[in-house]
């Protein structure tokens, strides 16, 4: 009889812990992060790949990025004062819990050179820090990629300006 009582007690504790952990996990997923704000994003090569297979590189400057949100419209802008005062590549973003995606157009003043688009995929380390990878699709043919476009990836880490992770 005592064994039975212990078994029931253990079962009740297990049930309570399980329910509690499900509850806290649900609460976490309901607290959605936001990219809105200013970020300094630092990128670096993956496996030493300094350029795309077709030889295109964006370099690895720190990028000053500002993300905004007005309702469902989530926009982004890169401040490239290092290149020119009016150089402002534009993009958009979306978020799903800790994961986010963003896409930008590359700024290509030389109409004869290659151009392309960037897709950022990442996650929040905390509210003020993000990390992930960037994929560049250049408008150069590459038969070795599934899309047929020259494709290059690199990694990034971003810190929110004024955030606690700086």
């Amino acid at each position, binding site marked *: 009889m005592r064994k039975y009582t212990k078994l029931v007690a253990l079962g009740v504790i297990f049930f309570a812990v399980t329910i509690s952990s499900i509850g806290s996990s649900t609460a976490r997923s309901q607290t959605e992060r936001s990219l809105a704000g200013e970020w300094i994003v630092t990128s670096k090569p993956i496996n030493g790949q300094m350029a795309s*297979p077709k030889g295109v590189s964006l370099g690895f400057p720190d990028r000053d990025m500002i993300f905004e949100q007005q309702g*469902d*419209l*989530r*926009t982004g802008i890169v401040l490239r004062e290092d290149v020119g005062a*009016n150089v*402002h*590549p*534009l*993009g*958009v*973003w*979306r978020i*799903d819990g800790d*994961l986010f*995606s*963003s*896409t*930008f*157009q*590359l*700024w*290509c*003043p030389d*109409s004869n050179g290659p*151009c392309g*688009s960037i*897709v950022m*995929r990442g996650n929040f380390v905390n509210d003020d820090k993000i990390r992930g*990878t960037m*994929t560049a*699709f250049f*408008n150069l043919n590459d038969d*070795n*990629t*599934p*899309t*047929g*476009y020259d*494709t*290059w*990836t690199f990694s990034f880490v971003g810190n929110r300006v004024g955030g606690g992770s700086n």
Partner: protein
Amino acid sequence: MPRPGHSQKLVCALATVALLLTSASPAFAGKELAGRWVLRITIPEAPGSTVTRTFNVTLDVSPRGASLHGRANMTDEAGRTVGAAWRQTGKSVSITYELPCPGDGPCGTLILQGKVKDGGILIKKGSVIVMWDTINDRNPALYDTSTGTFRGDRISE
């Protein structure tokens, strides 16, 4: 101080230049991505799928002014509106946006590329790159990718 005859010639020359510029602008602007468009996009249903889906979106393009880039709003058939960014060199235009994902299917990022033709009212045989949210270490993009097609028709200025 120019003589009156010289001055008249100068005014005449300036007026001619102004006239040429005025008449040239609309022709150039006509090929610029502008106004409201319906884009008919065909992409795979999911990463690796051979089944495609075709859907329409309405693209409201904001003028880019002197910038190389512009913004736009993309509204799908369910009435969901998200932002988009575009650039254009000559007739070649590129539009990127994030699919509005209600959570009941695979999500991704779309890059649309095409040429603005017929005086700025048509994008025919455009191509689409889809970068899905599913990680794929064997793909050079590090995520699953697909390709698709699109056509654009301008419906109003």
